[in-house]
Structure formats: structure tokens, C-alpha cells
């Protein structure tokens, strides 16, 4: 066991090739947040026109501060996303504040999902999600280019089949 200080997001340096998710994911996140902020500000504005109470202004201010902070953290979180295909398992890491790293052996996969929400589709992105028999398994990779998503899905499906049933 090495006692040197380990980088929490990069264990096993040199042996693992981490792939980042598409930077377009940040744009998707910004657009989504912008839409929500506009809707919530519109509601606050309407309330202010009806009640003209100072509390509504406070709520509006809190909303803007929350949005700025939330946006900063979610951009950090997207940048921290990474995945790596090893010989027998898939690694997925994400999170800046709370860091998470999952390892799912290919043999344990039950099925693979590829989904794309309306915004993701508009920017040509997709999310790949691995399911195992355990509900707690957490292996979701958002922000993949369609080609990469299809390649990953097919590869995972093929590897899972090779290795038989999961349970």
C-alpha cells in the first residue's frame, strides 16, 4: 500500500485511461438552469406585482444567488465526470463536493439503457446507464456523443453477454 498522497479522482494513475464527458454537457446544463431561473423569476415577478411585499424581493435575491452557486457546482460536477473501460469492469467517477467512484464488473450487468432528454437531444448528447441486480448500483454516464453512446452500449452489451447471467 502506498502512503503517498493519492489524488481522489485519479486512483491507479498510468494504468487507467479516463475519458471525460462532452463539454457540450455544460451548455445543456446552463440552458436548463436558465430556463428554470426564467420561469421561477417570472413567478416571483408576478407575485411581486400582486403583493409587492419585500419578502418577494428577498426570495428573488435568494433565487439568483442559489442559481449562481448551483451553476458553479454543477459545472464542476460535469467536469469531474469520467469513465474508463478496463479489461473486466467499467469505472465511473463523478462529483466534486462528494466524490464518487463506482466499479461495475461487466459480468454483473443486467441491461444497459441509452436515454436522451429533449435538451440533450437538441445538443446531440445521450446518457448511458448500467443496471445491475442491485438497486444501489450507480453507474450513469451523461453527456456522451451519439456515436460514443452507441459504441459504449454495444460494447457493454457484448461484454455482458460473454460473461453470462449477472445474478
Amino acid at each position, binding site marked *: *500500500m*502506498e*502512503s503517498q*498522497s*493519492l489524488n*481522489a479522482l485519479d*486512483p*491507479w494513475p498510468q494504468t487507467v485511461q479516463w475519458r471525460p464527458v462532452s463539454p457540450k454537457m455544460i451548455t445543456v446544463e446552463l440552458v436548463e438552469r436558465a430556463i428554470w431561473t426564467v420561469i421561477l423569476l417570472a413567478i416571483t415577478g408576478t407575485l411581486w406585482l400582486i403583493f409587492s411585499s419585500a419578502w418577494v424581493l428577498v426570495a428573488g435575491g435568494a433565487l439568483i444567488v442559489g442559481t449562481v452557486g448551483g451553476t458553479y457546482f454543477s459545472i464542476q460536477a460535469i467536469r469531474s465526470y469520467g469513465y474508463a473501460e478496463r479489461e*473486466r*469492469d467499467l469505472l465511473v467517477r463523478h462529483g466534486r*463536493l*462528494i*466524490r*464518487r*467512484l*463506482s*466499479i*461495475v*464488473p461487466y*459480468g*454483473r450487468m*443486467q441491461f444497459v439503457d441509452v436515454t436522451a432528454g429533449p435538451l440533450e437531444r437538441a445538443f446531440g448528447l445521450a446518457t448511458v446507464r448500467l443496471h*445491475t*441486480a*442491485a*438497486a*444501489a*448500483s*450507480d*453507474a450513469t454516464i451523461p453527456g456522451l456523443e451519439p456515436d460514443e453512446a452507441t459504441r459504449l452500449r454495444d460494447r457493454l452489451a457484448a461484454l455482458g453477454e460473454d*460473461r453470462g447471467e*449477472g*445474478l
Partner: protein
Amino acid sequence: MNKFHPLSPVLKGFRLLVLAVIAISWRGLEQLQLEGWLATVAGLLVVLLAYSFIAWRFSGYEIVGRELRIHEGVLSRRVRTVPLERLQAIEVIQPFQARVFGLAELKLDVAGAEKSEAPLSFVPLERARELRAQLLMLSGGAQEVLDEHEEELFRVKNNDVVVSQFLTPPVMFTPLAVLYVIGQVVFNQDFGFFAIASMLSALFATLVAPVLRMLNFWHFRLARTADGKLRIRHGQLTARSQTVPVHRVQALTVTWPLLWRMKGWLRISLAVAGQGAGTPEGGGQKAETDRLLPVATLDTARAIVPHVLPSVDLAALPMTPVPRSARWLAPLRVRVLAAGLTERVFAAVDGFATRTLTLVPYERIQSVRITQGPWQRRLGLASVHADVAGGTPVTASHRSLPEAYQWIDELARRSDEARASRG
């Protein structure tokens, strides 16, 4: 298609009626007067019986190849198909009202299902046993006739069950509640009959849980069938007989409740995939059916556990404690927290008052994870989680970061190898 027993609708109706009466409760009695209340109950009874009779006409079951098909429904008829290769465990249950007529129901635990399937109810007890043997044979893919011979492993003393249930917080605090009710009756003149009745009901409700548990764990017997399956039998009013193939056990939890420590007692529960938390009919007290041992000493547990997890000795697990820096995050638990990778299982201890030891065999680990919160990062700590089907993940909290990374890599490798070598 095989029909259920003709008494099934009556017995099922009885169960629903009890729930309905509980739902109406004291307040209802107060508002409706006795005649109105009786009329309501009788009306409900007629409606329920009529409904369950129609349901019975169209329901039944059949075995086709390696599938069990269950026909049900009144307005929209359904055929549920249970793939038998995914069958995890079968339980033969005799609820009190069915026991009177010598009937039983079969509860099936299926992997991947959110909760237990609705039971097959009711069939004669003999038929239930045959059906269980037949379904288990088909699920294992075996062709040979199952040997029903079994060897008894352990019998829990009813006395211990009673004492262990008295040593629980609800029972220990009951005397205080009784004093409160007496005090109200003596000093509070406005206290009406219905208020007292409601309080007595509440008091009764707190005592119901331990009493139901006592009845549920009454005559607890553990046996091993000739082909290596566990057979767990228990229950006074409702007699249960559960057959669990050992290789379907996903994880095992040993719990030492605070009040049991003076007796040196523990309990062990099993996580079996598909044995969900939900009750099929909704409402009512759920009986705990996941116990391997409801109350036992460490010596007994050491003798029994190897039948489920071969060559695991509870008293000699190579566990390592957490670094001292974990005291900032878990001041009380820092001396308790420990975990280790043993030859066959991943084990973790946690809990200050109620101590738990969770064991998961490597071939049952579905995925492994590390999480590291902001405080853990400052202290160079991280938590290791091993996910299992049909149970909560096994968590080793606050390990040192290099160790945590070494462990998840090792756990993923062992999980994969154990699964591959099993074929």
C-alpha cells in the same frame, strides 16, 4: 388450470374485513352507534365476499415448462408469468384462519421483483408442500425427485424469544404509558369513554408489535434438507415454513441490540433477492420472515453461520479498525467501526448502541463504490460500499483513502472471479 380451494374467497374476505374494521375504529363506532356500525360491517362483508367469489371463479395457476402462470383479476383479467429460474425462495404460510381448515398459501420470492409476488392462496397443506417441491425442482433445473428428508440444525427456546422481546424499548417504556393513562383517568374529569378507549387502543398498538413478534418466532426451527437447502419454520398463529436455497442468500446481517448485550444475545437476518419490503395486500403488521436466528448466543451463531456461508467463523474474522482520524466524523463509533476482506466474504461492523455486522460473499457483490464527502477528504478518508441485490449495500465507513482504493479494486476483482469460477 388448477383452481384454488373453494374456501379461499371466504378466508381472503375475512382478512380484508379485519382490516376494514380496524380502519373504521373507535371514532367510527362513536359516530355511527352500535346498530349503524354493525350494519356497515355486515354490508362490507357482503360486498367483499361477492367480489372475492367472482375473483375466485377466474383465478388459478398452472405450470407450463419452466414457468408458473397465475390467472387473476375480475374487471381486467391478468395472467402473471413467474420465470422459475429466477425463483429465489418459497414460503408455505398457514395464516390462523386457514390453519383451521388445513389450508396454506405459497409465497414466492422472485429476483428482480420490487416486492414479493402476491401469494398463491389457498391450497390444501399437502398440495402446498408438493407444489413447493415441484417448483423448487424446476427452478434448480434438476430432474431428480427432491429428497424431503431433513436434518434439524437448531431450535430456538420459546422462553428466549419471550425474554428477548421484553428487552426492547417499546416494552421497557410501556409501564410509563400505563401510568399516564391511569393518571388521566384519576385526575382529569373531562376524560370521556372514547378518549380512554382510544388511548387503550394506542397502548395496545405498542404492545402488539412485540407480542406479534413473539408469536411469529414461536417454535423457531432451523433445518437443512438433504440437497442443502435451508428450511426455516416458525409461528404460533400463522405457521410459516420457508425454504431458502443457500446460494440465493445475498447477504447476512448479525445484530446486537443494546438491551440484549447483558444476555450475550444476537439475531441474524438474511437478505434474499426478491424478498421485498412491501406486503402483498397492503396494511396490517408485516411479519418478519428474513430471520436466520431470531435470538441466539454467539456460540450458536458460530455453529449455524457456516451452513449458510461455508468456512466463515463469526468470532475469527480478520477485521481492521479505522484510522484514528475518523474520530472527528464518528466520535462514538470510531472504536466500533471495522471491516475486512476475508477469504470468502466482505465484512463490516458499525453501530454504537445497536451493533451490526454485515457479511456479503464475493460472488454476490454486484458493484462496488467509493464515496468521499468534503470532511472525509480533509482527513484522507473514504467509505467503501458493496452493492447487493435485494438488500442495503454493505458499507465500510471512514477507511483511509489508499486502503479504500486498494479494497474496491480487490473487491471488483474477487466478485468477478468468484462469479466466473461458479460457472
